[in-house]
């Protein structure tokens, strides 16, 4: 029992962090969707605002493709987001969770 208890605690902590990671996967996808939609309607500045709002206080990276000059109405714009997850941070690991969304450019 003395051996099993610490092992069980460690495993439960790892599971807890895995759950946080799963939630962040959904959050990153939502951030990518908002960024792509904003880029399709309002341009890159709007996309950066949208993704920053969706990420809250967490560091986030955003890449929009193609560049603004190459977009016309009806084309597609893709937002690739990487959201810094709080999961496994106490273990010294920084996990970047990806999300991606593509929308048709409207204006």
């Amino acid at each position, binding site marked *: *029992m*003395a*051996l*099993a208890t610490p*092992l*069980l605690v460690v*495993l*439960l902590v790892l*599971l807890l962090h*895995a*759950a946080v*990671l*799963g*939630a962040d*996967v*959904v959050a990153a*996808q*939502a951030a*990518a*969707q908002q960024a*792509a*939609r904003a880029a*399709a*309607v309002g341009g890159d500045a709007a996309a950066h605002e949208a993704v920053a709002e969706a990420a809250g206080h967490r560091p986030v990276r955003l890449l929009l493709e193609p560049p603004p000059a190459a977009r016309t*109405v*009806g084309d*597609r714009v*893709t937002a690739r987001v990487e959201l810094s997850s709080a999961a496994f941070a106490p273990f010294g690991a920084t996990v970047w969770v990806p999300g*991606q*969304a*593509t*929308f*048709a450019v*409207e*204006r």
Partner: protein
Amino acid sequence: MNAEGHDGRGATRAATAAGERGAVALTAVLSALLLTAGAAAALSAVGDLASAVARARTAADAAALAGAGASPLVTPGGGDPRRAAAEVAAANGGRLIGVDDDAWPLGYAVTVEVQPATRWIRRIVGPVRAGAVAGVRPAVGVGGGGA
């Protein structure tokens, strides 16, 4: 003779107790590992499904908007809404499986499916479906509008 017999039984009891303690510890460790493996599998399934649902929503929203964007009220001359929706759904990792164009050209509804990433979850659960509706708001006096 008796003393030797007592000592022998005592040693046997001690060995048996130690063996039982070892068996209990082993059982506890194995149980913990099994429990953790089960929880990890369940967590993985839930995470994968949640991710698939999020991707399906994204694909459905984008596809519906792309379909509505092909309306002649938005694009001069209009376009093929089904094709536009299917292309955008595919770009988001989804597949367009149904449309409802009853409200066309004022609106467009789609149903999209996305496959979970993990094979065994795909086998058990199958694809995740999501639907979305986009409406067209014609701009008064301009001759165009936004989806």
